[in-house]
């Protein structure tokens, strides 16, 4: 399965994602430059973390106008797999490929730390190798990870099973403390209605080797390997 990692000016987790898919998962992987109009026939587009355009104006607000995003929108519309990680998630929100928007973390500080997240939906291309309520230990690193949506959008997201991950404590409980950035309903990752586009704030590419502290990110990466029939 071929993966493409989009590079915007200011992306800085692109190399990390590249290594995760190429070395840890052992799959052909290529970089996709934001100014090009060619997805190079990849099976899954990855929008990596970082500070595209410095997070100036709003995180992801300028990146979403990049030329390549036209192709990404079409690709997603046809059911192609798109994974947005951290800043990538923010870009997908600005593109309206995912519902809602990001606000500043509730404690107004950048947070880099390990968190535990709970798998809410194990029937997506991104979580097939996991099980419902499974707890994954994956790091976050962001300033604007506080997901928000107006009440009717939130209801739709919940009712449609679009919530993929929630922040939880190590025992799987949803508590105010474990919701470190204040996201509505402790949402850490969600998908579109069709389930082929997912955004998550935690960084699975940072949890693919034991030397880095956790291999739980591989649950997401390995799930992607099973092609939709």
């Amino acid at each position: 399965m071929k993966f493409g990692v989009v590079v915007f000016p200011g992306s800085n987790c692109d190399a990390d994602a590249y290594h995760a898919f190429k070395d840890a998962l052992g799959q052909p992987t290529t970089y996709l430059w934001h100014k090009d109009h060619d997805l190079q026939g990849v099976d899954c587009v990855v929008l990596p973390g970082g500070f595209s355009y410095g997070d100036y104006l709003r995180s992801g607000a300028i990146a979403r106008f990049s030329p390549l995003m036209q192709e990404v929108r079409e690709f997603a519309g046809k059911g192609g797999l798109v994974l947005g990680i951290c800043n990538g998630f923010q870009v997908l929100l600005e593109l309206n490929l995912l519902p809602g928007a990001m606000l500043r973390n509730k404690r107004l500080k950048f947070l880099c730390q390990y968190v535990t997240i709970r798998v809410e939906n194990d029937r997506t291309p991104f979580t097939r190798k996991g099980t419902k309520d499974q707890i994954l230990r994956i790091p976050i690193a962001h300033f604007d990870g506080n997901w928000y949506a107006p009440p009717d959008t939130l209801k739709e997201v919940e009712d449609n099973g679009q919530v993929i991950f929630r922040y939880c404590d190590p025992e799987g409980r949803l508590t105010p403390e474990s919701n470190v950035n204040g996201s509505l309903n402790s949402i850490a990752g969600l998908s579109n209605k069709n389930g082929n586009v997912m955004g998550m704030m935690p960084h699975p590419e940072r949890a693919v080797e034991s030397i880095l502290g956790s291999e739980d990110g591989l649950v997401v990466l390995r799930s992607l390997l099973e092609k939709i029939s």
Partner: protein
Amino acid sequence: MKARILVSFKDSVLDPQGQAVRNALHTLGYAAVRDVRQGKVFDLELGDISRAEAERLLPEVAGKVLANVVIEKYAWQILED
């Protein structure tokens, strides 16, 4: 031609930065300040376009780029000089 666009959070959205500013003002003794909401000011310098064109351009730029309409609202004005 100079124009100004103001962007701020919609009323229903929590503004923790505005809260932090309000609390700081209270700590400094300004109890009369009941609430603070933080926003952004964009001052634009426009080229030689007609007023009508500007009145079309400004809300488009505001809604499409400068504000995220899921969480933000905007107001715009042409500045008389």
